Structure formats: C-alpha cells, structure tokens
C-alpha cells in the first residue's frame, strides 16, 4: 500500500503522509449530493470510494482514537464527571465526534463475560438521512468518495439532521449553533492522509482505505474470528442506508444491538421520508394553488357587495328601535 500523491484518495492511514506538498483533492467539484440542492450538476470525476473499518474484536478500549480525534479537530471536550462507567464523555457532543461505548455482555452460550467496545460516530451512509432532512442549501454534502461532511458556514443550527439520522450522531453546538459530527477527516483524506483515529489506533482495530480493500480485509477478519469460535462473526455494513463508509466487524453480527444499541436494520425513518417527500412537495403545491386560485378569483370573480337597499333596511331597523326623542335626531 502506498501514499502516492497521484492517487485520488489515500489507501491507508498507517504510513506517513507524503512529504511533497500536494493540492487538496476534495473540493466542491467532487460533491455528488448536497442538502436542499436538488439540481446539483454531476461531478466531472468519480473518486475511489473510501471506508473506515472498525474491527470491534481488536479494540482494547484505550480511547487513543478519541484523543486523536479531539486533537486533530482541535475540539476541547468539556471536563465531565465520573458516573461509574467507562464512557467519557457520556455521549457524543459537539466537541467529541467519536466515542467508545462500553457494554458488558454475559454470553449465555459460553458463560463468558464479554466486554464489547464499540467506537461510535458518523457512519457516512451512502443514503444519508441528515442530508435528506437538512433545509439549508449546501450545509451537508456527500463527496464521490463517500464522505458525508457538514459545511459549517451554511449550517443554520436547526437540528433537522438529528431528526434525519438513523444513528443519532449529529450534535448542535450551544456556542456557535452549528451541527457537528465526524468528518472522516475529510481535510486529511484530501491531502493523502488517513483519518486521525485510524492513524492513532495501536491495535489497528481501525483501518482505512478503499471500500473494496476494506471489505476484503473485513472478510479475512471474519474468517479468522470464525476459526476462533465466533460463529456469528460478520460485517456490519447496513443495506437499509445503502451501505456505509464507516463499517464494523462484529463478533456477534447476528445481534448488533449488543454493542450499545447499534440498530438492527437502520434506515431513514419512513416518518422523515413522509415529511421530506410527499408533505413537502404536495404541501407546497396545494398552498401555491390555493394562493394563486384565490388571487385570480379575487380579481376576476364577482365580489359579495352590500346593496343600497340593504343599507336602507338597516337604517329602518335601527330607527324603529330608537327610544322616542332620539328618533330622527
């Protein structure tokens, strides 16, 4: 594997970055989808799809990935408190894009107590719910290499991305009111480097490369795990969201929910589809038709007018009721 600067995306996170300067190769021209921009022109080139593979079975829970993430992205997660669990912080935050989630599993088949550690963060879905839900043009983009990125200067902080995400990943900052999540280190990938977390991982539980290479690697890992007695080992690359560009090797791929509630069959909620699909298009059409129709009818139709006769009737009625003395005054 090499870091050849002529490659359109890095093939590994392990080797050192190229020493010669190189141009960032992940630009607006590589965007295949952007939020609230339905008529985006097709990009001229197609980048090789990349992926980050997280092999849960190799993770030792050291949190080097979290440290590297905070360091590279220059975030300063708030100093929290100890609630008696290993998660730190206790949830993803606008300053912590990735989080090791720890769960204890008392395996009824083997009698072993298993410590399942999953690195949580954006999955970079091929069909991203955040992007579908976002109302701000260009605030969420998807590059042709599969990375889903938030463009913060366009973000308005509405939180629709949270509503759309099947994995509950984005977090809106209380400081600048913009939404944050893992970028898959798009700024590193653009210049031939792998993501910071993969670079920092001491056991290579996190590896990075082309999606095809990663699938091949994952298959090897699954085979190895099976030979060690994990019959249900497998890949978690969920179909419901079109596959993801961050995916897992799980020793219990038949029960993803063991890993801190990793969803069984994630997909964009039909409720979100209904909101962003039929409600949006038909709703606006009906409003438009009603507005135009009433304006046209208002201009061309016959108005409901009061006649002089009716004014006289009213006068008659009121006068006949006036107390004597006031009449005709």
């Amino acid at each position, binding site marked *: 594997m090499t870091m050849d600067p002529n490659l359109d995306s890095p093939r590994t996170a392990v080797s050192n970055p190229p020493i010669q300067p190189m141009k960032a190769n992940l630009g607006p021209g590589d965007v295949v989808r952007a939020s609230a921009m339905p008529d985006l022109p097709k990009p001229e080139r197609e980048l090789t799809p990349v992926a980050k593979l997280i092999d849960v079975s190799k993770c030792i829970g050291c949190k080097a990935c979290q440290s590297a993430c905070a360091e590279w992205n220059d975030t300063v997660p708030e100093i929290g408190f100890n609630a008696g669990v290993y998660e730190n912080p206790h949830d993803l935050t606008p300053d912590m894009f990735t989080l090791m989630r720890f769960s204890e599993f008392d395996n009824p088949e083997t009698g072993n107590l298993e410590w399942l550690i999953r690195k949580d963060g954006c999955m970079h879905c091929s069909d991203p719910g955040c992007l579908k839900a976002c109302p701000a043009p260009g605030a969420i983009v998807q590059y042709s290499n599969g990375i889903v990125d938030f463009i913060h200067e366009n973000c308005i902080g*509405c939180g629709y991305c949270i509503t759309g995400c099947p994995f509950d990943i984005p977090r809106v900052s209380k400081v600048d009111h913009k939404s944050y999540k893992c970028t898959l280190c798009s700024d590193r990938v653009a210049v031939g480097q792998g993501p910071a977390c993969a670079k920092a991982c001491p056991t290579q539980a996190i590896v990075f490369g082309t999606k095809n290479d990663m699938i091949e690697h994952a298959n090897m890992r699954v085979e190895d795990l099976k030979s060690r007695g994990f019959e249900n080992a497998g890949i978690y690359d969920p179909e419901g969201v079109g596959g993801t560009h961050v995916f897992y090797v799980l020793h219990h791929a038949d029960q993803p929910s063991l890993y801190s509630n990793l969803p069984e069959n994630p997909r964009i909620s039909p409720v979100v589809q209904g909101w962003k699909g039929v409600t949006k298009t038909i709703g606006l059409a009906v409003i438009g038709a*009603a507005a135009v129709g009433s304006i046209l009818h208002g201009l061309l139709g016959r108005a409901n007018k*009061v006649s*002089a006769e009716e004014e006289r009737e009213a006068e008659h009625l*009121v006068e*006949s*009721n006036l107390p004597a003395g006031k009449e005709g005054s």
Partner: protein
Amino acid sequence: MEKRLYSQSGDHIESTDPVTVSRYRGFTRINHWVTALSLIVLLISGLALFHPSLYFLTGLFGGGQNTRWLHPLVGILLFVSFFILFVQLWRLNLPKPEDRTWVANIGDVVTGHEERLPELGKYNAGQKGVFWAMSVLIIVLIVSGVMVWEEYFPELVSLPVRRWAMLIHSLAAVLIILTFIAHVYAAVWTRGTLRAMTRGTVTGGWAWRHHRKWLRELAGRERGGPAE
C-alpha cells in the same frame, strides 16, 4: 337590560345616519393584528425552511441562522396573542343550529343569495370554521414545535417522537396556511369586512346582509339605551 346572545359586550350601534355598527374595539383589533403579523412572519420563515425553492426567504430575516432562532420565538408570541383573542371570541363561535343550514346551502352564499339563508349572529359557520381550525392548529403547532426546538429543548422527546413531531408540524403548517388563505380571501371577497378590523366598524347594510341577528340584537339594545 337583556342578556346578549349574539353580540359581544362593546358591540353597539355607533351612528344612525348612516348606520354604522361597532364590531371590534381597539384592543381586539390590535390583538388581531399582532396575531396576524406573527402568523405572516411564521409563514414566511417556516416556508423558507420547508422547501429548498423558498430558502431565499431567509434573506428577509438576515439569513438562515436568524430565521432558525426567530421562528420559534414568534411562535410563542403567536400562541400568547391568539390565546388572548380566543378568550374574547370563543363564546360567539360556538356552533348554532343555523350553521348547519348555512353549510348545507353554501352555494347560495357563494352566489350571493344570502337572503335565502337563515339570519345569523356575529359569525357565520365559515368564520367559526376558521376560528376553530386556527385554535386547534395553533395548539398542534406550538406543542410539536417545542418538541423540535433544538436550541432550548434538544432532549425533550425521544428521536422517534421528534420525527413524528416534525411531520405533524409541517402538515399542520400546510393546513394553517390554507386556513389563512381562506380567511384573507373571505375577508376581501365579502366587501365591507376589512374595515371591521381597521376602523372597528361596519356599515348597517353589511350587518343586515351578513349578520342580521347580531344587528337586531344591537338595535334592540338601543331601545333601553344608556341612562339619559
């Protein structure tokens, strides 16, 4: 003096030659326009975040971020303002038997033959419909709106509930905009109506044509009159 059945306290015959009738006092009118203005701001800012083709409307508020924080605050203003309006108007908007006849013969209303219909109090069934639709939809909108208010209530409800709230909020918004269009259209189409919310009065002929029971009650009250 006898009890009012078809009119609000404050409604009275203002002058007799020509007849003008006071329909809304100043407080109610200001209350109405605050509500109307809030609804218009909500409609524009909401539509801007509803459909990409209308996102440019955020420019009216100084961009997307401003639109995002302004919309829910104006929502609260609308809710409070409409609530005050509701307290004043709800009693005369309760359904009456003649409303059924009015709705059944809506064709006569549209073609301008109101003389074929029963005499009405202060509101006809259409106006009552707008009133109750607004009341229900505003409650639905404020409740679902708070559930998706990221800035102050990010963890009020679970994600599945929040998704439903978002869908219901947008459906209710479509319905309230349609109600709003119907309300404005009816007020313009029925000539002589707008002045009830600007000057506060209507002509006697207008009251005779559209709300004769209301006019009769007010005329009847003149007989006793204020102590002379």
